[in-house]
């Protein structure tokens, strides 16, 4: 006869409001094999846990059931308490009478009856439970960071400074990301390049960091502590080991009129180029689509002028496999493109703003480049169409963001602040100019942020107009902006010289494809999902993969840097131990009955099932059976449900347990 203890939690009033917890505890005490039952206001609190521990010792309990919230919330808490009381932690289970009962029902009697049933069947599961020992797996103390923006750079530097090796992979020819494009940063107005480039140089010089630029993630195998990542090194057409970064190839390249992506297409670059002068590494790449040599086979100027002979037109893409123990994903964001409706995307464009037809309607990042000392205008605010200095500039917030009809319902978080910054930069550079801002709300929750915005309004004379713009059109060389001031309740018309749109922050292109390679989840916008919005904001649900920066959701620089350091800390925690303990809730194959059909292998989402050969003493092959790698198994139970010969069982969820639970009802 088993001796099970049942502890019913009130969860403050969360459960006791709709469920008569005393009755549930009393009914549980009458189930055969239950040696002890009680109810308590907060089981997860310290006195609650002490109650559990004491009861285990006093009543010599051999199994514990806590009827409270979801096991996702507190299973670990109570298993730890049971373990401290000398019980195998896997003999402690939870009955969810909060999310599955009290929160979703109103009728007290019926909810109480349901709670009793839930407890009854979970008691059966505890009764049939087995002691399990945690699985240990080795940890490769080397981390992979995907993305070389400020998030990736910060995470890589932190992990490397802790003494672990890091591989940093960046898709573009240089690290730096969007932050390198910015002119000045809020709320202090310090120069972005000045605080960014030293960190980029640190990455390049750090002995623990291996930097792969112009590279992409091809394939990810393995599991926490033991990933094998295939990295594709795109052909640069320049030998990195030979190139000295003198730049003569760029000055001699005859094809110089290619719009520079780094300047949002407003400056020009040659076909062999580095994205910007402070690029790390300072090794050019050849843009093969625009290079005369690659398109017509005639030119070769760069190879002729290159002293060390680094230009290599024959270079091919190469692949390397990196063994790493943890992965930090920091792929960042892109801006919603107002001028083009993305193909095959549910996101709608802004026809009413004359997108793509009016050259002097630009996005925020383009304004950053215009205001940047390293930008196409050398830091002068000049409008794209005729190079004149605009005297009336209209800024429009929430373009794309918070527009459900256009396909995006979230707030892009950074636009309020950077628009305030733009008005200041404009006021500093064009003294007789006037900046207008159309906005719905000013969202400035950050240290020194609201003060910054108020400074733009009160001291830097930006005219903020609460209300949105309905339409824009060209009249002569002006753009007519038709908006409204909802505070006054009138229509407003402004003839602007330049319009700057604070367009929405979106995940990078291909974010979904990378997520599929990594096996991490993402939301409908392709932002990566964290394991828990509040308590696990850095971890992915997939063990060993962490998130940093705007790939998880719109973020400003301070938040991004904080999250990157947090992700690095998580990686260091993982690397602090030589072996990793994993939850032993994994599938096991009964090799006696397995017929080797490998239906399980087809359905396994984790790639945990391998083929195992069974040989006799003479070494003759008897049969092939399935083998579950416990380090990889996610414990989902799909294989158990699929197996036609019923020879796979998931520990903690055995057929025997499930059947006993059904019978108890």
């Amino acid at each position: 006869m088993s001796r099970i203890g049942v502890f019913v939690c009130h969860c403050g009033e969360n459960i006791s409001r709709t469920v008569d917890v005393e009755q549930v505890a009393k009914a549980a005490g009458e189930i055969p094999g239950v040696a002890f039952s009680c109810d308590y206001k907060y089981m997860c609190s310290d006195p609650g846990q002490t109650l559990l521990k004491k009861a285990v010792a006093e009543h010599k309990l051999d199994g514990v059931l806590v009827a409270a919230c979801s096991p996702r919330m507190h299973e670990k808490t109570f298993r730890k308490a049971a373990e401290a009381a000398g019980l195998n932690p896997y003999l402690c289970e939870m009955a969810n009478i909060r999310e599955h009962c009290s929160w979703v029902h109103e009728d007290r009697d019926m909810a109480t009856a349901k709670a009793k049933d839930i407890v009854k069947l979970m008691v059966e599961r505890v009764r049939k439970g087995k002691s399990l020992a945690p699985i240990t797996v080795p940890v490769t103390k080397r981390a992979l960071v995907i993305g070389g923006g400020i998030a990736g750079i910060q995470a890589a530097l932190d992990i490397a400074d802790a003494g672990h090796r890091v591989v940093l992979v960046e898709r573009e020819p240089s690290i730096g990301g969007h932050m390198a494009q910015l002119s000045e940063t809020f709320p202090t107005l310090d120069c972005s390049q000045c605080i960014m480039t030293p960190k980029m140089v640190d990455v390049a010089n750090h002995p623990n960091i291996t930097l792969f630029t112009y590279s992409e993630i091809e394939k990810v195998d393995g599991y926490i502590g033991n990933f094998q990542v295939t990295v594709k090194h795109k052909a640069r057409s320049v030998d990195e080991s030979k190139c000295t970064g003198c730049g003569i190839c760029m000055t001699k390249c005859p094809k110089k009129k290619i719009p520079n992506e780094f300047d949002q297409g407003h400056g020009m670059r040659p076909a062999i180029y580095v994205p910007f002068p402070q690029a790390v590494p300072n090794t050019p790449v050849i843009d093969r689509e625009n290079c005369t040599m690659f398109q017509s086979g005639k030119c070769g100027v760069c190879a002729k002028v290159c002293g060390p002979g680094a230009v290599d037109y024959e270079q091919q893409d190469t692949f390397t496999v990196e063994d790493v123990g943890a992965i930090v994903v920091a792929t960042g964001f892109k801006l919603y493109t107002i001028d083009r409706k993305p193909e095959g995307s549910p996101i709608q464009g802004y026809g009413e703003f004359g997108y793509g037809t009016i050259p002097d309607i630009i996005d925020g990042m383009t304004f950053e480049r215009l205001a940047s000392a390293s930008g196409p205008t050398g830091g002068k605010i000049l409008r794209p169409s005729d190079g004149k200095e605009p005297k009336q500039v209209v800024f429009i917030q929430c373009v794309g963001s918070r527009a459900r009809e256009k396909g995006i319902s979230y707030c892009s978080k950074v636009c309020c602040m950077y628009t305030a910054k733009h008005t200041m930069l404009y006021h500093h550079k064009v003294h007789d100019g006037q900046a207008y801002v159309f906005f719905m709300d000013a969202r400035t929750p950050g240290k020194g942020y609201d003060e910054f915005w108020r400074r733009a309004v009160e001291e830097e004379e930006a005219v903020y107009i609460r209300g949105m713009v309905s339409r824009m059109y060209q009249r002569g060389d002006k753009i007519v902006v038709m908006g409204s001031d909802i505070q006054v309740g009138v229509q407003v018309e402004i003839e602007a010289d330049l319009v700057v749109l604070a367009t929405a922050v979106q995940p990078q292109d291909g974010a979904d494809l990378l997520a599929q390679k990594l096996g991490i989840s993402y939301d409908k916008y392709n932002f990566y999902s964290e394991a828990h919005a509040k308590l696990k904001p850095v971890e992915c649900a997939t063990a060993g993969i962490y998130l940093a920066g705007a790939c998880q959701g719109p973020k400003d620089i301070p938040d991004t840097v904080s999250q990157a350091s947090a992700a690095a800390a998580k990686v260091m925690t993982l690397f602090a131990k030589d072996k990793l303990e994993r939850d032993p809730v994994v599938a096991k194959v009964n090799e006696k009955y397995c017929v080797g059909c490998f239906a399980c292998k087809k359905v396994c989402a984790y790639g945990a099932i391998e083929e195992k050969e069974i040989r006799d003493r003479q070494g003759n092959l008897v049969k092939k059976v399935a083998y579950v790698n416990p380090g990889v198994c996610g414990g989902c139970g799909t294989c158990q449900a699929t197996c036609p010969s019923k020879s796979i069982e998931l520990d903690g969820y055995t057929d025997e347990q499930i059947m006993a639970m059904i019978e108890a009802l």
Partner: protein
Amino acid sequence: MKNKLMHLSNETMNIGFVKKVEALSGSSVRRCFQCGKCSAGCPMSTFMEHPPNRVVRLLQLGQGQRILAGRSIWYCASCETCTTRCPNKVDLAAIMDALRKLSWDADGPSKESYVQLANRLFIENIRTYGRQYELRLGAAFNMKSGQFLKDLMLGPKLISKGKLKMFHSKNKNIAEIEGIFKRIEEMRKKGEAL
């Protein structure tokens, strides 16, 4: 005027006027972030076409003429509830005061602003007699505002109680009072006074 399309540009925004209001009232106009607390507590708000917060908003947009064309500033009772409760230290009562002062010289003050007419006649009486002559004030107000019979029946009552004098009594130092008016006029010409 109230709902007329608003064109915004450096020419249409009268920032000079706003600067005058700020100087006169000693309160920032830009500081207001339009929370609406002033209008929420204003006892006269329901009578105004531009409630107090909108008066500030119009100033922020350099639209002083829209305020002066309306009657809001004349309905303000100067109770200072707005100033007392403003979370952002905008002295709205002082701004209202400043607007009333500035309305004296502004183009096209409201035709409805009998308050201004009354104020003007009041001051003229002081200048002429050196003190107030209520009967003349009342008569002139009724004539100029076109409401000939307004409060006529109150006259005999007030006279019988000695509150309204039939004949004026001139101040002895009328020349000195004229001197004060002259000096203010000169100062106004020089721009030293409003």
